[in-house]
Structures are given as structure tokens and as C-alpha cells.
């Protein structure tokens, strides 16, 4: 009886979670970011990408990060669905655009707009915020069965320093990566030190090769633009994030050194000078100054 079996099938289907959500169920919750919960999971590479001959063993499963923009019950469901859809598609488009242009971002692995899930390359490393320290207290989830295995930032800092990664070169690399992103006409929209990661590079062919790279993440609020105004606002957002969380680096003597953001700007300008159009850098700088003025003058009437 075909109708009956169809009924049963439909019923079974109805009780089953959508595939991506059942994958999430089996994954490890890493943390809750600004709008999403992020999980660590594994996926096998697509057989289309790695044609397997019968002789070679199957490729190993690779770690992926699943970013779930779960339904936000505080806001109206219509608005919530709309925002989630916009952000998931926006983020995947920006990732692809950056990947094509050679900007360091996580590779895109899967997209499920309906469920609000994005799968991307797992970046083995630390957020820049963790490396720099700062903030009020931890943003990790409450301790649950040793769920978090994050190193203390002091340890991370010590370890990176031991490898020869100092704050200044890290901050300049941050600036350079943002410059590459801007030259790819992507505006991030939410540049904070939580939204960029540092990962160590495995092998070095020559001692002049970099030890690490900066990977930009979290493109949910990104847009496409090449206007100096939009780029300047993007930088200004980051400047304020630095000012509020980690304004200056402390010298070994305990004195205050150059503001962190100055180092970022140095790396940014150098990269735009090198790869951008003539005069592009000074146009952005000029705009940044104007955007700063606007911020200071912003009316603050009670």
C-alpha cells in the first residue's frame, strides 16, 4: 500500500532533525559569540574534490567549525528569520569574496540558510583578544564537564613570545590583513579583536618567512564597498574596540607604550601603499580623521 508507507515515511521525517542540526547535536560547543553558538565538528572532504582511487586510503575527516545562528526568542520571529537569513548569506558571500582575493579567512565548507548554520574551516589558534588579554572577565561558557580547554592568555602570550611573535608584529599583521580585505572591496562591519584569530604556520622554508598569520572571521555584518568613507568607519570601529578593551601595550618597565591601534594602522597603511591605487591610502587616512572628529563631536544631550 503505497499511501500508507508514504504516511509513515512522512511521520518519520517529521520527527527527525534537519541533518545539519543533528550534526550540531553531536558536536562540541566551543563558545557563544556575539550572535551565534560555535561548535567543533568533523566533515569528510567531498569526494568530488579528492578523487579517490581504490588504492589510496580514504582521506581523513577534517575539523570544521559550525556556526549556528540559533533562533533568538527575544525578538519577533519574522524579524529574527529575516536577520538570520541575511547574515548567513552575507557571511558566506563575504568569505567567498575574500577567499578569491587571497584574504586570510576560514574556507567555506557548508551553508544551511534555513537553519542558520554555516560550516567553515577550523582555525587552530587564538583570537587576538585572547592573545592581547583585556576585557572584564572570561567570555567562556560556564565550566561544564571540562568543556573548555582554553589556555590562559598569559600562557598564550608567553608561548608566542617564546616563538618570537611580539605584539607589534602581530598588530601590524592585523592591519595588513584588514588592508587586503578592504582592497578586495569587503567592509567587515564588526571589527573587534574577538573577530580575528592568530594561527601559527607549520613549516618555514626560510627564516624570513612569517611565523604566524592573522585570519579574519565573523563576516555577518559585512558589506561590499570601495568607498574611503566605509573603510574609514570600519577602521574607526576597530579603533574604538581597542580603546575600550586594550588601549596601550605595557612596556617591560611597566610604562605605557605606543597605542595598539597605531601599530595596526601602520601595518594597514604599509599594505595599502604597496598594493592599493595611488593616493588611496591618504584618502582613507583623511576620511578616518573626519570620522574621528564626527565621533568626538557627536551630540551628547541628556
Amino acid at each position, binding site marked *: 500500500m503505497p499511501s500508507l508507507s508514504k504516511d509513515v515515511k512522512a511521520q518519520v521525517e517529521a520527527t527527525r532533525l534537519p541533518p545539519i542540526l543533528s550534526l550540531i547535536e553531536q558536536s562540541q560547543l566551543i563558545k*557563544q*559569540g*556575539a*550572535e551565534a553558538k560555535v561548535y567543533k565538528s568533523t566533515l569528510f572532504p567531498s569526494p568530488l574534490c579528492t578523487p579517490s582511487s581504490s588504492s589510496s586510503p580514504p582521506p581523513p575527516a577534517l575539523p570544521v567549525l559550525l556556526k549556528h545562528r540559533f533562533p*533568538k*526568542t*527575544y*525578538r*519577533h*520571529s*519574522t*524579524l529574527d528569520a529575516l*536577520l538570520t537569513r541575511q547574515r548567513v548569506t552575507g557571511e558566506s558571500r563575504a568569505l567567498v569574496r575574500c577567499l578569491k582575493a587571497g584574504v586570510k579567512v576560514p574556507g567555506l565548507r557548508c551553508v544551511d540558510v534555513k537553519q542558520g548554520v554555516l560550516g567553515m574551516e577550523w582555525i587552530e589558534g587564538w583570537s587576538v*583578544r*585572547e592573545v592581547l*588579554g*583585556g*576585557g*572584564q*572577565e*572570561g*567570555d*567562556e*561558557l*560556564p565550566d561544564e564537564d571540562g568543556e573548555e580547554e582554553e589556555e*590562559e*592568555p*598569559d600562557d598564550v602570550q608567553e608561548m608566542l613570545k617564546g616563538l618570537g611573535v611580539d605584539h607589534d608584529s602581530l598588530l601590524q599583521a592585523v592591519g595588513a590583513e584588514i588592508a587586503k580585505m578592504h582592497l578586495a572591496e569587503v567592509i567587515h*562591519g*564588526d*571589527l*573587534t579583536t*574577538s573577530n580575528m584569530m592568530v594561527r601559527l604556520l607549520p613549516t618555514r622554508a626560510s627564516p624570513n618567512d612569517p611565523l604566524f598569520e592573522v585570519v579574519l572571521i565573523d563576516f555577518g*555584518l559585512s558589506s561590499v564597498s570601495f568607498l574611503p568613507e566605509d573603510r574609514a*568607519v570600519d577602521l574607526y*570601529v576597530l579603533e*574604538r*574596540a581597542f*580603546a*575600550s*578593551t586594550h588601549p596601550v601595550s605595557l612596556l617591560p618597565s611597566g610604562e605605557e607604550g605606543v597605542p595598539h591601534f597605531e601599530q595596526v594602522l601602520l601595518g594597514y597603511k604599509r599594505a595599502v601603499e604597496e598594493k592599493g591605487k595611488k593616493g588611496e591610502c591618504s584618502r582613507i587616512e583623511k576620511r578616518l580623521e573626519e570620522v574621528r572628529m564626527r565621533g568626538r*563631536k*557627536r*551630540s*551628547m*544631550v*541628556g
Partner: protein
Amino acid sequence: MVKRAARPCPLQAPTKPVLALGLEGSANKLGVGLILHSPPSADSPTASTSSSDPGSVSILSNIRHTYVTPPGEGFLPSDTARHHKRWAAEVVEKALASAGKTMEDVDVVCFTKGPGMGAPLQTVALVARTLALMYNKPLVGVNHCVGHIETGRLITASPSPIVLYVSGGNTQVIAYSQQRYRIFGETLDIAVGNCLDRFARIIGLSNDPSPGANIEKEAKKGRRLLPLPYATKGMDISLGGVLSAAEAYTRDPRFRPTNPPKGKGSSTSAEDPSTIKINGKTGTAMVSQEERRRRAAGEGPQASMQDVGLSTGPKKVAKVQLEAGGEAVDVPPPAEGEEDIITPADLCFSLQETVFAMLVEITERAMAHVGGREVLIVGGVGCNERLQQMMGIMAGERGGSVFSTDERFCIDNGIMIAHAGLLAYRMGYETPLEETSCTQRFRTDEVLVNWRA
């Protein structure tokens, strides 16, 4: 994460009780309050609840007089200043009387230095200077925003929250770090209170008790979520576009200004001299300049002196802690085949839902970035229960909680100025007479918060 040794609180418990008089008048509310900071008594455990604030605090009086403008109108600086001038003496007297104190008992006079409207600020500063000179008392000029934050911390006993400051003139997400209240996000154009108040005026809602309160009431009857621009930029937001889009709906052919009275043609209302056209629709007439002045002078029907009440301890004050997964919006959607119209209630509902979602989102971003779990909502818009509810759900989903105060403290009042001023005074700060001028622009992060660790 960063393990910081708990630094000792720089604020010492007072050795004897200190009494502050606070004067606030940066917008249309004139508030005067008296607050007493006392040495911790041996048997009271209250001091231990807020380690950042040794000693015990009692609010002795909290009196407010509000300048209520006619429907459709905002308050002008000159009229507001006139209102404050008219009522200052009476409100101060009432505050002293209900606290059972005289000016001789007062140790320090605190006033709002800014930010706010120039003329009203100056009027109240003049009152403060006069009192200080007459009774030979020191003065402390207070940042209005810091006043809100410190009072919120006091009332809710939340030691180090992420603060959402939402009022008629300000919209900021703030977190404390290294002796400053640092601004993480803010509005790039108009403040949220301003946005709501202006919209209330566009649709002709009453300003009594406040336009925002009437929007909230109206929104409860709304049933359709109309699309409005949603503009968060990182931790900042922009509200100008939302307001103009909401206003544009009032020109939509589907818009019905109010529920038309049954059996009456629309022509009758047009003949009524008290109604005029607002945006091409019928509405209530604007009131003449004379009438406005009359109200500013406090002779209007709605002006009133209010004893906004006291609180004896943090525990007695409303503390919102909603559970996650609470019912978000509880309105029946329009029925099938129902006439496709837009009501003022629908617009209020849509405006609130959209704007508050933006506020909650930027607060959540700040929480994620800074790592805080507690949110404190301060400022006049903080009274809105829908905003409190939404924030509660968000915080609940992050394993945190929300604190807010009711209209006694989230609406501008004298206590907030007295309390923040007294904290500074106890750290040895006084504002010399020649520096007691006011400033319309006074950013929250300009103040050195040296009473916190």
C-alpha cells in the same frame, strides 16, 4: 582568562554620615533628592553585598516635577528653563521637608553639569550655586550619565554590569574598565528616547506622563510587524532611518490615524476646530504659544509635583530576571481576510520591536566582547517593560541576568545626582565655584571614576 587580583576599593567607608542634596534638570524633569551615606553599622550586613561601596546608603527623599507639553509638541529649552525656575524653590523645600532635614544638615550640593539642554542646565546650576553660597556648602558638578549608572548599581546591587543607557538624549552601551565608564557602542544619529518621543508626537499621542510610556501602551495593541530598516553597525546603531520609515507609514493609504468612531463620517471631525491635519490625516490641534508658556509656568492641567518615593534597600527594588525562552510577543496576528490597514498601534509595535531588537543585539555584542554576564538598563527608556523583557531573554540565553529600576530611578531624578556626586565628594573632589558652568556635551568616558577599583 585574565586573572586579576581583586584590587582594593579606593572608596573608604565614611567615618561619619554625609548628606548630599542633588539637583537635576538637564531635560524636562526637575528633580531634587537627598541621600545619606553612613559608616557601616556593625550589625547590618548590607555593606557586604556591594563590596565596591562600603558603608550604607539611605535615600531620604526623591521629589520630581515634570514639564508636560501638549500632545504633538516637544519641549523647548527656553520653556523648560522657565519651568525649572518656577518650581525650583518649592521642589527643594519639599525634598528637605520630606527628608526631615534643613539646608544646615547638608554636607554637599550636587548638580548636573551636563550633558543636556543648555538653558535648563544653567537654571538648575544657578539654583545649586545660590544654595551653596547662601549656606556655605561645597559644590560637586556631576555627569548625568554617570549619575544614572551609579544609581542603577546602587539600587540593583549589580557590581559590574554592562550598562545600556537609553534616554531621550543618549543611547550607549557602556562597560567599566580602568577607572572610566567606556563607551562600546552608541547611536550614530538620534537617541532612542528621542526617536520614540518624536514618533509619539507624529501620531499625536499624549506627553502625559511621557510620550514613551504612551507608545508602550499603544504598542500592546499592535498586531502587525511592518518592515522597518534595521541598522546595527558593529556595536553602534543608527535610528534616523527607522524613524523616517515609520513616519512614512503614516502617509500610506492603508494608514488609519485612530479607530474611526462608528456611524460618524470623517467630515465631522474635519469641522471640529480642535483637530487639524497631521501628515494629511486628521489629528489633534497644536497648542498655541501662550498655552505652552502657561504649561511651562506650571499652570497646565497635567503639571504636578511628585514624590517619587524612596527605597530602603536594594532588595526591595524591582529586579527583572526573566527566564530564557519566555513568550516573545504575545499578539494575535491579523485574521485571514481582515482589512489590510495600518493602525498607530501597529506602528508603535513595529517601532518598538525593531528598535529594541537593535538595542538588545548591541548589548549582546558588548557582553560577548567584554565577557560580562550582567546587564543593567538605565535611563528613561529603561522603564519600558518590553525592552526589559527582551533583554532578560537575551541575558538568560547567555546564562546571565538583567537588572533595571522602575520609573522612580530610571527617569531623571535628583537622587542620581546626589549619589554620584557624593561618591566623588568622598574621594575628595569638589567643583570650585568658577568651574560650575554647564556643558551641553559631556561624554560619559570623560569622567575619572576614581571611587571604583
